[in-house]
Each structure stands twice: as C-alpha cells, then as structure tokens.
C-alpha cells in the first residue's frame, strides 16, 4: 500500500531527525562539529571570511568579507557589528558597510585606524585574507528611503564617509540632485578620494571637499554658505559628535530637524572614575558603589540575588554580563568597558564600579 506524507508529517520527521542528531552530539550541538569541517558554520551568529584587504589611505583600509550561512544581507548605509580576536580576546565593534548589496554576497567595511585603537589598528594593519570574523546581522536606519528624495545632501567628515559611500555606490544613479560636503585633513587623507572625484567628474554628484589643514573645521555656518539651498534637502550626516551635535541644534532651531539624519560612531563618553551608579538591569535595582566595593557586595547590599562562590576571584561562580559602562579589576586596576549592546562577562567579586555601569542580572 502506497503511503503519502503530509507536510505536517514531514515536519514531525524532520524534528525527530534533528533531535536524534542532537542526541548523537550531546552535550555539544551538531554545529560544534560542523565548525571543525567548515569554520564559517556553527555559532548562533553568522561568520565571515576576510577575502581581501585593500589600503585606502595611509591609515585606512577596506576589508572585504564573504559572509557564511545565516547572513541576511543589508541595505546600503547600514552597519554591521563585527567580532574579531585581537591578542586572543574577542572584541566587537560596529562598522558601516561600504559595499552596495552585491550578487556575489561579499560585503566590505572601511576602517580608519584610530591612534591607540585596539580593533581599528588591528583591522587596518594586521588582518590578512583568510581570517574568520564574527558578524551580527546588519542594522541601523541611516539609509535612503525607497522613494528617493528629489534633492539630497550628505555631510561627512573623516571616516564618516563610509555609510555614505555605501549609499552612493548603491543609489547614485537614482538620485537626481546630490551634494556631498566632505571634510578631511588633506586631499590625500580623503578616503575614497579618487572614486568620489571620478563620480563628481561624471556628473553623478556635486562634491565639495574641505581640507581642515587649510579650511579649518566644518561648521553649520560654513555648510550653509557652501549649500545655500540646504533647507530644501534631505540631509544625511556622519562624522565627529561635535559636528553632528552642532548640525542637529542648527536644524532644530531652524525648524527642519526632520530633514536631518545622523549616524554616530562614538557613544556618549563613559566617565571612568572611582565608583559610580551600578544598575542591575534585570532586577531593576540601582546602587551607589564606591571604587573599592566589589560589585558582588554592592549588589547583595541592594538585595539582588547575585550568583557567587569563593568571593575571592578564583571560582568564576559570580560572573555576570557587563552591558554598559566600566568596571575596574580590584586586583590589578585593569578597566573593562562595555558599550551598549555588549555582553562582557565580569567577575563581580573582584570588580568595582569605575563610573556608572550596567550589569545584566
């Protein structure tokens, strides 16, 4: 007798097969073994392999990455959180995608090495093709609307050109009237300089380059002079916080704050000091702790059910995620800082607040 299976039966079968395979690999998951064969598989986050590193300026480089399974693509202007091991430690940073969505799936980011920067220096100067990196899905709403604005203005400074480059590469053809005002120290420090100038020469956009070494810093006043019809343009701006703050207040004061879209590369500065306000996110408790009190003690004093063990830094029974702010290792003074979105495990029994901080418990 022929039997036919319904989709529901197939789903059931698939589920059983999955559970069987999971039982064969317990306590690991099948992905842990896949990873041995294909390093781009395995984890909960997608991964990618660096396929090329191209220098852009003396201190900036473009890194091409081929994402593995699970990468859901991006919209030009968005950024990706990238996890890379520097000196053996997994570090996560955000980078704007400078590639338009491409049929071969390869994405690019363009990184400027910050003086003393842990990740940017590593990416620009040390990463080689073949390196496996960790990715989050692309995110951010610094993107062009589907219905393109009749007139657009991009205001960028330094590495702030990156998300705009992604948009221009994707949509320059579909934007009728585009002005780009870009500020950089010198002509040869302009990331994507030749490409932008070429685009301008072909009439794709009006390019206004400002070189701070001769022109000084870009201000809203200078911008209004350079782009007289600014109030009729949808504006996307990305650069140092001071520039963005000044633009925002000028646009707001003029009553067209809704025309301005900004992308910030740096969070508000976290004050690293002695002690601070500790918030225990999940428990809804906030405690003032001085710089000598272990977070474990501070939490317990505030009535938080803190996991703990030896209380002397050896058992790791007290580890909870640091979700924001800074803590100081009481043993050696080393400060660990988490940006919003981070999840850095810290031992609460030997860490004290070094400024306001936020724990995930």
């Amino acid at each position: 007798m022929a039997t036919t299976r319904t989709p529901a039966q197939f789903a059931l079968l698939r589920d059983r097969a999955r559970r069987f395979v999971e039982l064969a690999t317990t306590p690991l998951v099948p992905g842990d073994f896949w990873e041995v064969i294909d390093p781009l598989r395995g984890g909960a986050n997608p991964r990618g392999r660096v396929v090329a590193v191209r220098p852009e300026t003396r201190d900036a480089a473009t890194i091409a990455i081929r994402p593995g399974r699970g990468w859901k693509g991006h919209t030009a202007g968005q950024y990706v959180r990238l996890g890379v091991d520097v000196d053996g430690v997994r570090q996560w940073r955000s980078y704007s995608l400078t590639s338009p969505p491409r049929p071969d799936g390869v994405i690019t980011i363009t990184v400027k090495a910050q003086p003393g920067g842990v990740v940017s220096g590593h990416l620009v100067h040390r990463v080689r093709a073949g390196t496996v990196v960790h990715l989050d899905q692309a995110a951010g709403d610094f993107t062009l609307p589907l219905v393109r604005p009749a007139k657009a203005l991009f205001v960028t400074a330094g590495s702030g050109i990156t998300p705009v480059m992604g948009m221009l590469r994707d949509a320059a053809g579909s934007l009728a009237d585009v002005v780009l005002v870009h500020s950089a120290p010198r002509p040869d420090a302009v990331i994507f300089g030749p490409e932008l100038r070429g685009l301008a020469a072909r009439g794709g956009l009006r390019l206004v380059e400002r070189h701070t070494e001769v022109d000084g810093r870009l201000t809203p006043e200078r911008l209004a002079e350079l782009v007289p019809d600014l109030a009729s343009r949808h504006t996307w701006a990305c650069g140092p916080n001071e520039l963005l703050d000044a633009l925002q207040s000028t646009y707001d004061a003029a009553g067209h704050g809704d025309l301005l879209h900004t992308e910030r590369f740096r969070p508000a500065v976290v004050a690293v000091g002695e002690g601070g306000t500790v918030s225990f996110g999940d428990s809804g408790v906030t405690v003032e702790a001085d710089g000598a009190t272990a977070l474990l003690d501070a939490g317990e004093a505030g009535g938080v059910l803190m996991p703990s063990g030896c209380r002397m830094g050896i058992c790791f029974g007290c580890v909870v995620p640091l979700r924001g702010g800074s803590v100081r290792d009481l043993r050696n003074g080393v400060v660990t800082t988490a940006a919003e979105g981070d999840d850095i495990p810290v031992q609460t029994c030997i860490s004290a607040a070094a400024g306001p901080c936020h724990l995930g418990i």
Partner: protein
Amino acid sequence: MTTIQKQDRNPIAHLTPEDVENLGRELDALREKVIASRGADDAAYIRKVIKTQRVLEMGGRAVLLASKFPPAWFVGTAALSIAKILENMEIGHNVMHGQWDWMRDPKIHSTTWEWDHASPAEQWKHSHNELHHTYTNVLGKDNDLGYGIMRVDEGQKWHPAHLGQPLWNLVNAIFFQYGIAAYDLELGKNLSSEKRRRDPAFKARLAATLRKVRRQAAKDYVVHPLLSGPSAPTTLAANLTANLIRNLWTHSVIMCGHFPEGVETFERTSIEGETRGEWYLRQMLGSANISGGPLLHIMTGNLSFQVEHHLFPDLPSNRYQEIAPHVRNLFERYGLTYTTGSLPKQVASAWRKVIRLSLPNDLLAKKKRPARPAPLRAVAPVRQERPRVATAGS
C-alpha cells in the same frame, strides 16, 4: 597524613607572618606576569586542543561504525578514549575553571560550557571550584578528602565501614563519572532525611543530573550503536570501554592531586581569617604534582601541575609548565616541600594510603602522635631546621 596543626614538626613553623605575606606577594606577581602575557598563542592553543578533540571523537566514532572488525574496534576505541579524556581534562575541567574566559568567546566560556560527563557543569562547578578550591584539604570542609566515602587522613574519624574502602575506591574508579555526579549532588547528605529529600532545590538538581545521565547514556549506548547497524553490539562495547578507560584514568590522576604521602591537611579552625598569603601556603602544601613528559601533561589536563593549578586555578593550563620552575624555586627559598613523583609512584602512594587508613590509626601507627592543635598562621617564634625539599621522581 595528620593535619599540619597536629604534627610533631610543623612544616611551616619556620615561617614568620611576614614571610608568608612576602610569599603571597611573589605569587601575586607571578600571576600578573602570566596574565599580562596571555594572548593569541594561548587562544590558538585551546582552539587547537578543542579541534583535535573533536576530530578524534568524530574519527573514532566513524571508525566504530565498522566495529565488527577487530582492528576498527581497537582504533576506534582508542581514539574515542583519548577524545573523552581530553574533553574532560584539558578542555572541560579547565574551561569550567574560567581559564579561558578572558578570550570572551561565548563558546569557550565557564558560564556556557557543558562537558561529556554525567555531572551537569553547573553542579560540578559548585562542588569543585567553590568548595574544593576554596577549602582545599581542610578537614570537614573539603569533601574531596575521600569524597565522603573514604578516610584519607588520620584526622578523619575511623568507622568500621572504612574497612571496605579499598573496594569502594575501586568501584568508584570504575564508575567515576557517576561517583562524581552523586558527589556533586551530595547524595549521602541529601538522601539522609525526609526533609532534605523533599527540598525543591535538591529535587531540581537531581532532575537535572538524571536528565544529563539519560542523554549521555542514550548517546553512547543507544544512538551510536544504532547508527552502527550490524556493528551495534561491538560499538556498544567500545563506548563502554572508552568510558571505563576515561573513568579509570581520571580517577587515578585526581587521586594523585591530594592523596599521596607528603600532602598536608588542615584543621577547620585554622582557616578563620586566613590571609591571601596563608591561602597560597595552604594550596602549596595541600597539592602534589605528577612528573612526566608533554603527553602526560596534556592527558592529565595539566593537573600534573596540581600545585600550580591550585595556586592559580584560573590561569590557562598551557602556562602551568612555564611557571612551575618559578613556583618550585619559591618552595625551596621558603623551605617548603614540593611534592611530586611519577604517575605510578603517586598512584601507588595514594592507594597505599586508602588501604592503610581503612584500619584505625593506632593499628598501623609506628609511633603515637601527640595531638597538638595549632593555627595555620605561622606564629612560631623559633625558626626550626628547614625541612628537606623533596624531589622524588623528577
């Protein structure tokens, strides 16, 4: 061994409190040196060990699909045994200690790791990391001293049940992973009264362990034999053998850590208000190493450097070997005994103790030891003759 406080010659009597604090500072400095130099090479090391372990496990299990053929059986069983030992020792034990937490890799982290073992990671971390590593060798506090089923110190009270302890020890070795699971559950204590048996926290932990045991057994004794088809019975036998070899090996290595002759034990009251230096000192005197080559070190999960591990339980295991000479030098300078010996010697020494202490003390005591409790704190004003630094077997 008698607790250090009751011995005729207290091995730390020659140390002043300043000596002990200096010792602590030197060890802190050594620790900081390793932490400052942790980096990409260390990360590459643990990833390589994990990868090797997984390749061995996959390879072993693949070969066992044809375990009907004796050569396949032997090769597959050997690979799987080595994989299981690596998984428990160099990987599981050390990852769960937080030795690799600094890499911030959520996959290789003490809070997320689960091991190929009957005891759930959560419970093992509590009994091992918190209790054993904090109260190392303190009578009545560190249950690792005989696991609650044996008497391994003269200071532990003799009971006629101890007569059978050589046998218990053998049975425990054979079923070691279940022994540890039961120990982590504190079964003896928790089954002792109706009230404890009904405690919801205990019941939840028991359920977690049973679930883990079920899944582990299903993997080795049902799923993989089934996958082997006609080789099912021989694959079952291979998996049983691999688990047995892993159990016997880990039991032997772990016995060598704290049971051999020369390891000191401590009075419960001696650790009240213990300083950092005193804690270090207790770890130094309470642990024993195993001497041998690189293969031995990796197969013991570097617990062959038990002394270094107990001083710095959260330093990456691949670095113990490099700090061992410095630690040994400290022992010598402070006139302390660095207990070490070859694997056969240390295993034999631990077994001798298990057999000897199955009988009451007086029966075998060569000389009656006067009970003289003293604090661990080195307050003895007179400097005694420095004990000889033992260098047995190396």
